[in-house]
């Protein structure tokens, strides 16, 4: 099988960022919240590899901690999205027609409200917090996962081997467990990277708007918002969190593309 460059690059980026996030649990170069008013806006040096910010905090430490915030949010939102998506999609595929119709209508309506808008509503209702954002993003992404999953699951349910297993007495529950869910794994893998990339964009955007991760937890989006006013004099301060957000999204996008190419060789045609 041909190696897919997207898959390799995506896996590399996601693994590196995941490593950074893990690292932040045990160690960061400095305390990310330690304020040093004598060393505000320090240029990158050997002591502070990415310099210090407007309060004299070490930028590298904040970026590393931000990776944890961002990836944890993405992970949680993805788990919610995949759980909802797989459950609704599978239920739709094996349910009687009327229930399928109802579920599809709900899914279509939620897909019409994008993750960010739903997150805005929830933030309005419950106050800004990471968990509110995560739940909203998870639900919204779950709807689009459900739409894809339903399509795939319906195809699996109609496959001859599944019909054969039904005729030999397998219950719906057994069919779902043994055939549908197992065969959905590749699709869900692709969908997870899509959901993760949506979640990272949504979390950083919400935090940027002040409706996501509240202070003092370091977050890329809030770093961007806080440093934007110093753009003219200290553009590097804004650059670092921006680069990391983009890198994370790019990583998950490439990972998803790579997985999709693996699953569907005809896509190579479009390269």
């Amino acid at each position, binding site marked *: 099988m041909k190696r897919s460059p997207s898959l390799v690059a995506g896996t590399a980026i996601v693994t590196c960022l995941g490593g950074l996030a893990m690292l932040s649990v045990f160690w960061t170069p400095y305390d990310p919240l330690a304020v040093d008013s004598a060393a505000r806006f320090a240029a990158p040096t050997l002591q502070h590899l990415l310099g210090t910010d407007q309060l004299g905090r070490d930028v590298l430490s904040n970026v590393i901690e931000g990776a944890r915030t961002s990836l944890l949010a993405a992970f949680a939102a993805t788990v919610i999205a995949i759980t909802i998506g797989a459950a609704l999609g599978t239920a739709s595929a094996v349910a009687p027609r009327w229930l399928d119709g109802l579920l599809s*209508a*709900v899914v*279509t*309506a*939620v*897909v*019409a*409200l*994008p993750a*960010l*808008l739903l997150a*805005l*509503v*929830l*933030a*309005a*209702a*419950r106050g800004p917090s990471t968990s509110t954002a995560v739940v909203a993003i998870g639900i919204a992404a779950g709807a689009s996962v459900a739409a894809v999953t339903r399509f795939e699951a319906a195809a699996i349910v109609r496959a001859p081997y599944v019909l054969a297993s039904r005729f030999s007495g397998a219950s719906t529950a057994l069919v779902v467990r043994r055939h549908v869910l197992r065969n959905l794994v590749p699709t869900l893998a692709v969908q997870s990277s899509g959901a993760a*990339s949506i979640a990272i*964009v949504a979390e*950083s*955007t919400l935090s*940027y*708007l*002040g*409706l996501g991760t509240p202070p003092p937890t370091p977050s890329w*989006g809030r770093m*961007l918002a806080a440093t*934007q006013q110093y*753009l*003219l004099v200290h*553009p590097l301060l*804004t650059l670092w969190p*921006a680069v990391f*957000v*983009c*890198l994370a*999204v*790019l990583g998950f*996008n*490439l990972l998803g593309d790579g997985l999709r190419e693996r699953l569907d060789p005809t896509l190579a*045609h*479009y390269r």
Partner: protein
Amino acid sequence: MSGVLRRLATGVAGILFSTIAIFLLLRALPGDVATARLGTDATPEALAELRREYGFDRPLVVQYFDWLADAARGDLGRSLLSGTSVTDDVLDRLDVTLPLIAASTALSIVVASAVGRRTALQRRHRRTVATMTLTQLGLAVPTFVVAIVLIMLFAVRLNVLPAGGFPVDGWSAIGASLRSLVLPTAALAASQTAMLARFARSSALDFASSDAFRTARAAGRSRHAALLSGRRLVVAPVLTVASLQVATLVTGAVVVESVFALPGLGSMLVRDIANRDYPKVQSVLLVVVLMVFALRAVVNFANDRLDPRRSE
């Protein structure tokens, strides 16, 4: 015709579902609206007075249908904070938001279709590889980061366009108004264009391997002219994706307006959410949802005109 009717029915059902979701999320989930407005140390009399004034003391079902009926008559209620008419506020702000969204939608579709056609004809060309890499990167950069980069380049470094804001006189200063919308439109269209370009390319590649394309080539047309002869078929799938992406674009507008400090619907929404002005947020969200469905209907209509088989 039945296709149009069915779409209308799904649209209405979708809007109704969204109104229920918005209403329940804002009214049933949180604590008391009146307490949120007046604070926890407000006297019970003051709370009751505010509840009566805004009708929060009535059953939820009654409130919901009243809200819908009023909205249908064009009355979106009053702001909890300023007491001003939400309808007036919304109409005021649409001046900025509608042009922004319309321009970005059009821009992204036109640019993406052109990019798709061009890159499909030159499969292994260096420029194609560069363009496709650029679209992959474009997909990875969140809208607010694009906006910040554009401000840095064109407003701070080159100083050719305003970094934000909108003329106080509105559209009467048309030159200044247009100039202040250039960067926001570009920022909003960027990731949309990147995504649509990828679809445009695969759609153009599909057409380039079709019998219609081969026939056109056999009749002596150049590759470019042959591809152009199928432009309707090439653009149709792009419009389909664009219609699905409308909601993302509209929320993108919320972000872009906040970054560029534009007096639009989106920046107002973010401020009202921060101020916990629930009745207003609820009505503004309704307008946003209506905008999503209306814009999608426009794109779908254009798509039907391009590819008449769709509406059968």
